[in-house]
C-alpha cells in the first residue's frame, strides 16, 4: 500500500500566532483507503492543523499536497472542491430545514431565475442516503432526527462531491455504541472506495480498532507516526504526553463511613424508573451506562433540577425533598455538571468569581462583597487542587479544560459538601490532566466525601470506583463492587444483557 500516491500530504507546516508557535513543522500523509488517526492532547495543535487544512488559517511555512500536487487552501468550500471535506465534532445543521436542504446547503441545484430544482435535489439526496444506509428520508426535518442521524446528515454533506480525503473530528463524542457501529460502517465503506480518512479522536479503543496508522502531535510538534498494528496504547500515550497514563483498576480497599445519600425507588417519567442506590462517606460510586441511559437525569434529580415522579431521597438517613439546587446545596449535595462550559462556568467571569459564585452571598462585609474573603477561598482551593492560572483575575474561558474542571470542582468543594456528584469528570480534557482529576477524585473520597462519578468511559469508571452501578435504558441493571466487576459483565449489563444474572 505504501507505494501508492498519498491523497493528502502535509509537509513542514508551521503556523504561528502572536507569542505562540501553534504548529511547528508538522508533516504527515494519508494514503488512499487508509484510516489515519491524528492524536494529541488538547492544545497539541490538532484543531489548528485542521484549520490550516481547511483554509481558515494560512500556514506561515510548509506545503499541502493533494495527490502530490501542491495546493493553497483558501476556504473550507475550496478545500471541498478539491476533495478534502471535514466532519466536525460540533454539528452545524439548520434544524428547521430538511435533510436534503441541509446536505446541499450552499450548493442547492438550481433551475433558471434562481429557483431550486427540487426534483434533482431529492434524487441526489436519496443517492447519498442510500450510500449511508440510513432509514430517514430526504424530506425529514433535521431537528426531528437523533444526534447520531444528524451526524449522518453531516457526513452526507461530505458526499455531495467525490471526496479524496475525509477528516473526522471526534465523530463519536456524542454517539452511543450502537450508533458508533453505523458510523464505522460508513467509514469502512469510504475506505473501500479508496478515500483517505483522517480520524481525530481521544479514544484509544476506537483508534486501535479503526485505524491503520497513528500520527501524534504534542505542543504543536509532530512526534511521529506509528503503524497501529505494531504499537500499543502505552506507546501512543507516551508519545502524546511524554509519559504513560495510569488507568489500572481501583484496588484500594478501605473502610467506608455511614450512608451519606440513599435513593429508594426513584423515578422520573421516561428518564429513569425505580432506581435504588446508596453512597457512603469515603466511597466513590461509579455510574456506567450508555448515553441516554438516565445517569445524568438521576444526578439532576438528586440536585433538584428535575422533579421526581416517585421515590424518596434520604440524606444522612433522613428523608428530604429537593426542589431546587438551592435545597441541594443546603443539604450538602453538589453537582459538577456534564457540560462544563454551558452548565458549570460563567466563561466571561474571572477564576475567583467563578469559584465563589454559589456562596458569594455569605462573603460580605456590610453591603459589599469582601474581596479578601473571596481571594482567601480562591487561594485555598487553587493550592489544594493545583489549579494553574496566572492569577485570580484570569478569565476562566482562557484556561485549559483540565484547569476549568478544577475550578468547577473547587467551587463545590469550597461549599463543604457531603456528597459530590461528578458527571463526566474528564470529558474534553487532555490525557495528562485526566489522571490528575482521577487522583483528585480518589483523594476526595479518602478525605471522607461521598463521591458519585458518572462516566461513559469504562477504564475511567473501573479506575476510580469502589462500586459501580450499571444502567440500561433508565433502569439499574446491576451493581458491582470493584473486586467482582469484569469488563464483560459490565458491558453486558449496560447493553441490557445482564438482566437474568441480576435477578
Amino acid at each position, binding site marked *: 500500500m505504501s507505494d501508492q500516491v498519498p491523497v493528502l500530504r502535509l509537509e513542514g507546516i508551521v503556523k504561528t500566532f502572536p507569542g505562540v508557535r501553534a504548529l511547528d513543522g508538522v508533516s504527515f500523509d494519508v494514503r488512499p483507503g487508509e484510516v489515519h488517526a491524528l492524536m494529541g492532547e488538547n492544545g497539541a495543535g490538532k484543531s489548528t492543523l485542521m484549520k490550516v487544512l481547511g483554509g481558515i488559517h494560512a500556514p506561515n511555512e510548509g506545503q499541502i499536497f493533494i495527490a502530490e500536487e501542491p495546493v493553497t487552501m483558501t476556504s473550507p468550500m475550496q478545500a471541498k472542491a478539491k476533495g478534502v471535506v471535514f466532519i466536525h465534532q460540533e454539528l452545524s445543521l439548520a434544524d428547521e430545514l430538511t435533510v436534503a436542504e441541509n446536505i446541499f446547503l450552499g450548493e442547492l441545484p438550481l433551475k433558471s431565475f434562481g429557483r431550486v430544482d427540487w426534483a434533482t435535489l431529492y434524487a441526489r439526496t436519496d443517492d447519498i442516503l442510500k450510500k449511508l444506509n440510513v432509514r430517514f428520508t430526504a424530506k425529514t426535518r433535521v431537528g426531528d432526527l437523533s444526534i447520531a442521524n444528524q451526524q449522518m446528515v453531516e457526513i452526507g454533506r461530505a458526499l455531495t462531491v467525490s471526496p479524496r480525503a475525509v477528516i473526522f473530528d471526534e465523530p463519536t463524542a456524542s454517539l452511543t455504541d450502537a450508533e458508533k457501529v453505523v458510523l464505522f460502517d460508513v467509514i469502512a465503506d469510504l475506505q473501500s472506495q479508496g478515500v483517505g480518512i483522517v480520524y481525530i479522536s481521544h479514544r484509544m479503543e476506537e483508534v486501535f480498532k479503526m485505524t491503520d496508522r497513528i500520527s501524534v502531535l504534542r505542543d504543536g510538534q509532530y512526534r511521529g507516526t506509528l503503524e497501529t498494528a505494531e504499537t500499543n496504547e502505552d506507546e501512543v500515550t507516551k508519545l502524546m504526553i511524554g509519559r504513560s497514563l495510569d488507568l489500572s483498576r481501583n484496588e484500594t480497599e478501605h473502610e467506608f463511613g455511614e450512608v451519606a445519600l440513599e435513593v429508594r425507588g426513584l423515578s422520573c417519567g421516561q428518564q429513569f424508573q425505580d432506581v435504588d442506590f446508596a453512597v457512603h462517606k469515603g466511597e466513590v460510586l461509579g455510574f456506567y451506562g450508555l448515553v441516554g441511559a438516565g445517569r445524568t437525569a438521576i444526578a439532576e434529580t438528586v440536585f433538584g433540577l428535575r422533579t421526581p415522579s416517585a421515590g424518596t431521597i434520604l440524606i444522612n438517613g433522613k428523608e428530604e425533598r429537593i426542589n431546587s439546587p438551592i435545597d441541594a446545596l443546603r443539604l450538602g449535595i453538589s453537582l459538577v455538571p456534564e457540560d462544563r462550559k454551558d452548565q458549570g462556568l*460563567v466563561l466571561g467571569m474571572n477564576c475567583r468569581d467563578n469559584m465563589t459564585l454559589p456562596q458569594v452571598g455569605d462573603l460580605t462585609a456590610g453591603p459589599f462583597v469582601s474581596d479578601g474573603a473571596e481571594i482567601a477561598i480562591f487561594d485555598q482551593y487553587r493550592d489544594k487542587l493545583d489549579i494553574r492560572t496566572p492569577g485570580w483575575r484570569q478569565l476562566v474561558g482562557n484556561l485549559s479544560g483540565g484547569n476549568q474542571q478544577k475550578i468547577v470542582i473547587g467551587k463545590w468543594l469550597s461549599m463543604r459538601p457531603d456528597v459530590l456528584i461528578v458527571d463526566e469528570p474528564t470529558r474534553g480534557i487532555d490525557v495528562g490532566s485526566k489522571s490528575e482529576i482521577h487522583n483528585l477524585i480518589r483523594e476526595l473520597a479518602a478525605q471522607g466525601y461521598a463521591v458519585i462519578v458518572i462516566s461513559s468511559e469504562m477504564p475511567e469508571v473501573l479506575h476510580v470506583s469502589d462500586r459501580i452501578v450499571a444502567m440500561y435504558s433508565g433502569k439499574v441493571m446491576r451493581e458491582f463492587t470493584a473486586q467482582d466487576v469484569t469488563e464483560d459483565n459490565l458491558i453486558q449489563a449496560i447493553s441490557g444483557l445482564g438482566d437474568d444474572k441480576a435477578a
Partner: protein
Amino acid sequence: MTPDKRKDLLKMSAIWAFILVELAFFSIIGDRLSVSDKAFMDFENMLLLLKQSAPIGIIALGMTVIMINGNIDLSVGATFALAAIVLLESMTWPFMQTLGDWAIPLAWLFALLTGVAMGAINGLIVWKTGVDAFIVTLGAMLGFRGLVFMFNGEQPTSHLNWTLVDFAEAQFLGLHTATWFLLATALLLWLLMTKTVHGRNAYAIGNNREAAVNAGIRVGPHFLLNFMLIGFLAALSAVVFYSESGSVNPNDGMLYELWAITAVVLGGTKLAGGYGSIISTLGGVIAIQLLRKGLGHVGADTQTVNLVIGLILIAVLILDRQLNRKGQEELKI
C-alpha cells in the same frame, strides 16, 4: 499586563477617548462654522450639557443593569411619561393642595412608586412566565403608553409649582440638580454592580444563566429587582425633568428606550448580557449629548444629528467586533 486586561482597559477607555475627540473636533471645527458667537467649550455650556444628559442618562444607567442581567426594557419611555403625569396630577389633588410644599415629596413618592410598580409588573411577568423580556416590555411599552393617553387624551397635563421649579433649577457647587441626580445614580449603580452580591449575580446570570441556576442563584428575584430598579429610575428621571418643566405631553418619553439602549451599547455593554459597565454608559450618554449639542452648534438640524449618531453607533459596533475577533477564528459571513 495580560492581553485580556489590556483589551479590557482599551475598551473601557474607548468611550472617553471618543468624547475627547468630539470635544476637540467641535472646539476647532465648531468655532469656524458656529452659528453663534459663543465658544463650544464654554464652561456654562458644558454644565448645561450634563444637565441635559440627565433624563435619558438616568434611564440608560438602569438599562445597563438590565442588559448586563441579560434582559432589555422597552417600556421605560412610557413609564417615564406615566410617572410624570402622576407627579404633576397628584399635586392638584385637593388633599395635596392643603399640604402646601409638603405635597412635593409626596408627589415625588407617588411618581417613584408608579415607576417601581410598572417595573414590578414587567419583572413578575418575565420571572413567572419565562417569556422573553423583549416581548414582555414591548407589550408593556404599548400598554403603559395606552394608560398615558387614557388619562388626558391628547391634552398635556400641567401643574407648575414654583418651589419645585426653584429646586430643579438650583445649582450646588456649580452643578444643576439634575446633574447631581445623574452622578449619584451612576455612583450608586456602580457600587451595586461591582461591589454587591446582587451585582455579581446579575453578571453571572447574564453571562450564563444555566451555570447561575446550578450555582443555586435564584434568577427570578434578581430579574424582578432589576426591573423594579429601572422602573424606579425611569420615574426618577421623570421627577427630575418635570419638576422643572411642569407640563407633560402624552407623547413625551417616546423613543427614550432606544436612546437609552444606544447610549448603553455605545458604552460597550453587550446586548447579549453578562458584560458591561455603568461608568462606560455614563460616557455613552455624554458622548451622545455632546454630538447633539456640537452638531447643533455648527448649525445641523435634528435629522442630520440623528443620521450622524446612527452612523457612529454602527461604526462603533463594527470597531468593537474587530477588537473582539479572536484571530481569524471568527465565522466569516
